[in-house]
């Protein structure tokens, strides 16, 4: 069993006594692709910055490759790639010069990969950063995060400004990283359909805490919308186990149920004296339901 690349325990961060993230624990194993979801202000960026060691934790800690991420040795830093939400490109440089500056920090920079991707992604290397569109800047920023073939790639809203074609090209590149099996990706995104395609693990941050985390397939299997139809009026207080919400209207009720499994169906149908219909939810619907 490989040891996890990232391990956080009781991680928390406060700014002047005001908590922005509290009591978060998780691990990221080699090969994991983690999708981080949360409303604006839920703490996604803070979480990623803590993992990267850009800021010290005020509670608990996070280890990257077995080291305290805030005191990461240089060799371990070279194994991490980061694509920030706001790019940190230098306006005066051309794309080629920008790549040159960043690549000089990394002994194992892959010129071939960056050259090929900049062609495929139509990034004009002669253009100055200040003349680039937002999408072009984002592509360049992603190239800079990928160029040294990091073992852990962390991306904060990497595709917000990309068109659908560029987004798909980006996704393919992440798949290439994941197909390696020994590299991990952690990415936050509001584009739920991308998370749906790529992630094998999901973290949902809510109110500065880890609200749900786990295997994506089990999330989709376990949270369902349940429709109950009875011939008689349903009781005002419906006893539905693990219901996140219940709406009742006479003989019909709808509930969002967490931890659902098909073997609960018959028992509950008898108990409610109702016909049940189970509707599976998309990730977007799950996300919305969890935020009601």
């Amino acid at each position, binding site marked *: 069993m490989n040891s996890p690349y990232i391990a956080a325990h009781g991680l928390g961060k406060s700014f002047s006594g005001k908590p922005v993230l509290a009591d978060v624990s998780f691990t990221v194993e080699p090969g994991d*692709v983690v999708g981080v979801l949360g409303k604006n202000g839920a703490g996604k960026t803070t979480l990623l910055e803590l993992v990267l060691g850009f800021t010290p934790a005020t509670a608990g800690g996070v280890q990257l490759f077995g080291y305290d991420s805030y005191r990461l040795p240089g060799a371990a830093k070279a194994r991490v790639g980061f694509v920030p939400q706001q790019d940190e490109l230098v306006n005066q440089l051309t794309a080629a010069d920008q790549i040159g500056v960043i690549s000089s920090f990394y002994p194992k920079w892959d010129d071939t990969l960056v050259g090929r991707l900049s062609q495929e992604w139509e990034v004009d290397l002669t253009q100055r950063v200040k003349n680039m569109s937002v999408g072009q800047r984002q592509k360049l920023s992603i190239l800079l995060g990928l160029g040294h073939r990091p073992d852990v790639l962390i991306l904060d809203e990497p595709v917000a400004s990309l068109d659908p074609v560029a987004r798909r090209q980006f996704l393919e590149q992440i798949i*290439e990283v994941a197909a390696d099996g020994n590299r991990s990706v952690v990415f936050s995104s509001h584009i739920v359909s991308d998370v749906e*395609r*790529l992630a*094998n693990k999901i973290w949902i941050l809510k109110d500065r805490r880890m609200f749900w985390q786990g295997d994506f*397939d089990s999330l989709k299997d376990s949270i369902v919308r349940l429709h109950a139809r009875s011939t008689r009026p349903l009781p005002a207080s419906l006893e539905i186990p693990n219901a996140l919400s219940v709406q009742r209207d006479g003989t019909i009720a709808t509930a969002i149920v967490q931890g659902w499994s098909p073997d609960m169906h018959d028992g509950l149908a008898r108990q409610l004296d109702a016909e049940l219909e189970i509707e*599976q939810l998309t990730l*977007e619907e799950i996300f919305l339901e969890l935020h009601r």
Partner: protein
Amino acid sequence: MVHYFTNAVGRCRRLFILKPHSGMPIYRQLLEQIRRMAASGQLPPGTELPSIRELALKHAINPMTVSKVYTLLEAEGVLERNRGKPMTIATPERTQAPLANRLEQLEPHVEQVALAAQQLELTEKDVVKALHNAWEKNDEQPVHRRTRPR
């Protein structure tokens, strides 16, 4: 998004239809499609499946999802892993359901026999003996192996 691939002789073209933005997890969509196509004979034994990487890239889905499906189907006996070669649809002998599933199918019949035997006040030994005789008798007759639909 469809995915075409060819079998060993390059004749049949098949496709998967995966909808990531659906309530059903992607792994289950793929799992059930391969299972169905193998069961119906649409994917005949020996059909080569795309590599994990190839399928993941084609559909823009996580390679682990594909890997999980292949592993589950291999355990079920639907797929065969071949060293250094693509996974293939297993030959019918190998597509036998796991023991637990087959026993489950037998259960109602056994319950019937047990119930009848108790009502007739037969002993367990009597029943085992009767079952043994029936088994032997069946064995003398030519056995038709389950054939797959064309």
